[in-house]
């Protein structure tokens, strides 16, 4: 036996553990590459309702993202969707449905469902957890919105009243009736996660099912806050439908934490671990590791020092302004924090913000410019590093909160970044 081995390095470092980073990491790891995901903390995916919103508004409400996207992309040539073709978007959705195997998703880009929010607003979304799908308000019958008394983040009367008014204003009133249940366990101050853990207990579940059976009318679908279990959400939801004999759907809660977000993030992270992917949590990438101008790795700060971590490719999925992937300092200058890549943003002297809160602020679009393979480019349009790819909200040019496009952008660009690397890896 010989004594020495070759250098052990990762093939890919993925920076960020949100939807874009996890999708890229899982895809790469399952293709056999050695993937290390470096993340400052748990990603914001755990705070999201975990629906895959592809395009909800453009600017009017979108019925079919698939039909709307070509025109939307043409009208927004700097938008990430201008780089992601419809075929690739569909592939990425199909991939997600196959890979989130503990928690099934339904729907595709051909049509948006309209799901009620916790405030009773119909929200367009294309690909949704099966536990939410029965809440689709398109042609819905009457619904019973059931609150759980111990949960202070969900108010059935508010949701039901708003929902009825909002659907009536659209000319297709959905009859919504509230009920406030009193589940076992007393009036303690319980949050969504604690309640979701209780739902994994059979006796608790049975007690809630019995109360729902008594409260629901024969024709009603039952809406509940999205707390129906964490790891065992499928079986909790299935059992509640069986025990009540009614369609049951979850409504994402309005304030964090988000139990569905924890399920999706957990499913993808578990998948990544099983594929041999590694996580480095609580660490930040402080810059590129360069040799003669070539990126040979990233510099990672740990508890006591900054250490280079060698890799062949980097996926940068640190998020946008809201997640800190893009920073704006007190002088209004925008920068990309991990690798110091050039950011497209309003420059000094240019208007960054408009007077109205809801205006389309130029700073909203701040982020990286990328080429067709999602390589960040400089002002000359050339890739800064041939082996760095961006995914998710760090790419500029979108207003995801207005367009309801954030999940679709993250999913499809995470998928595409992995594809670009896999092509090079051969």
């Amino acid at each position, binding site marked *: *036996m*010989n*004594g*020495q*081995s*070759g*250098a*052990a*390095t990762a093939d890919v470092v993925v920076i960020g553990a949100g939807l874009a980073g996890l999708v890229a990491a899982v895809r790469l790891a399952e293709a056999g590459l050695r993937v*290390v995901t470096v*993340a*400052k*903390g*748990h*990603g*914001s995916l*755990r*705070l999201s309702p975990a629906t895959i919103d592809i395009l909800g508004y453009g600017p009017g409400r979108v019925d079919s993202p698939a039909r709307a996207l070509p025109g939307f992309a043409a009208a927004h040539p700097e938008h990430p969707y201008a780089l992601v073709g419809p075929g690739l978007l569909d592939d990425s959705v199909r991939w997600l449905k196959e890979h989130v195997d503990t928690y099934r998703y339904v729907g595709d880009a051909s049509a948006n469902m309209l799901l009620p929010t916790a405030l009773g607003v119909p929200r367009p979304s294309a690909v949704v957890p099966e536990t939410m799908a029965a809440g689709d308000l398109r042609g819905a019958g009457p619904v019973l919105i059931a609150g759980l008394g111990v949960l202070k983040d969900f108010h059935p009367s508010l949701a039901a009243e708003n929902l009825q008014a909002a659907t009536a204003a659209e000319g297709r009133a959905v009859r919504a009736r509230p009920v406030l249940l009193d589940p076992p366990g007393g009036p*303690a101050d319980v*949050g969504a*996660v*604690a309640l979701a*853990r209780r739902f994994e207990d059979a006796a608790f579940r049975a007690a809630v099912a019995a109360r729902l059976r008594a409260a629901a009318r024969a024709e009603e679908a039952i809406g509940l806050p999205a707390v129906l279990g964490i790891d065992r959400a499928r079986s909790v939801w299935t059992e509640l439908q069986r025990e009540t004999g009614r369609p049951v759907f979850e409504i994402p809660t309005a304030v*964090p*934490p988000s139990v569905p977000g*924890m399920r999706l993030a957990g499913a993808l992270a*578990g998948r990544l*671990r099983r594929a041999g992917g*590694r*996580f*480095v*949590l*609580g*660490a*930040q990438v402080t810059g590129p590791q360069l040799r003669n101008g070539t990126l040979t790795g990233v510099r990672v*700060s*740990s*508890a*006591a*020092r*900054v*250490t280079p971590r*060698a890799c062949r490719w980097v996926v940068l999925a640190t998020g946008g302004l809201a*997640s*800190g992937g893009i920073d704006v300092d007190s002088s209004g200058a925008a920068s990309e924090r991990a690798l110091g890549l050039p950011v497209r943003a309003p420059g000094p002297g240019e208007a960054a913000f408009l007077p109205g809160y809801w205006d389309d602020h130029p700073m909203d679009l701040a982020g990286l410019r990328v080429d067709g393979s999602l390589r960040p480019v400089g002002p000359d349009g050339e890739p800064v590093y041939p082996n760095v790819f961006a995914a998710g909200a760090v790419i500029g040019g979108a207003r995801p909160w207005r367009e309801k496009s954030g999940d679709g952008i993250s999913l499809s660009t995470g998928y595409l970044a992995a594809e670009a690397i896999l092509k090079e890896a051969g």
Partner: protein
Amino acid sequence: MTAQQPDAIRGSLDHCVKCTICETACPVAAVTPLFPGPKYVGPQAERFRGAGPSVDASLDYCSSCGICTLVCPQGVQVAEINSRARAVMKQQRGIPLRDQLIARPPLQGKLGTPVAPLANLMLGNRLVRLAAEKALGIHRDAPVPRFAGRTFRGWARRRPAPAASGTRRVAYFHGCSTNYFEPGLGRKAVEVLAHNGCRVVLPRQGCCGLPLQSNGIFDAARGYVRRLAAGLAPYARQGYPIVATSTSCGLMLKREAREILGVEDDDLRAVSGQTYDICEFLAELHQAGELKTDFRPVPLTVTYHAPCQQQGHNIGKPALDLLALVPGLTVIELDRACCGIAGTYGLKREKYDIAMQVGSGLFGDIRAARPDLAVCDSETCRWQITHGTGRTSVHPVDVLHRAYGLS
């Protein structure tokens, strides 16, 4: 993240956006209503803490596992804020005798080692343990270690001059537990390092003060860690990597002494930057192509649990990369946050049940995997895992030692 100045620790609470990610990850809040969660007692309550008496009894139920800091996407040092606030509270309310005793491993070691058979007999005696629970509040079933009877340093003094021809100089920080309870681990660490061409020196060293810190006895903890840093600093300044097998004590040197105890001194700074967890050190050797991989097959199935304090190094899980090099070894990565013990937390009468509940998911996964060995980097976690599962638990270095054919 790299060590921050003390003021920046408290100041980090202003980055809290109340996203609750820490609350969803907290292993203690998940099992008991006695702890309302890290955000609640941390960045939220900290704003109301002033000079007056502390009103937070719930803070005492924080186990200091540090997972809240680890998962926070905003960089809020929740665990550090909570540890400091708890020390203030405990100083105001008085430190129980029990906490004074269990926080001093050198005292236990010096008293127990010469009379190890008797001490072990007593620790295993039901009546003695019942009495200790009544009189002191140490839970009768809590996993306490056994004295080895001989110290690691005693072995090191007698060991033949190392044959290693290597030129890489390494200072080994063995810690109290290796010295008094698991001297075999120290021997294996030295032999694995020597096998990789390291000349291992053993600086004079005592306790890092971590148990004192986690019991809120900060003044004594500062004294311990300053003395330790003074002993290690000459080596650090000569460029020796300081390699630790006790992952939590290594973390104390890397950042907790500064971030939690607020120790600012040049010795500690020099030592921090040179301190490595042993798996981190060996994995970096491997990355440089300098780790020996003349491993023999080890046809065993092992589980690997990365302890909370190991995760606090922010280096991922280098043990997995090392174990993956061993032919024939099947490694099952466990995805559970905490075993519950959190150093001395799970020893305490009022916290034992909470600690066992925190660990129950991990114990269940280990029992289901039916491993030959449960691998884990931290000594108190290994004792807890064995207590909770009946399985033998070893440090990753133990497996490498076998694979190198040194055992």
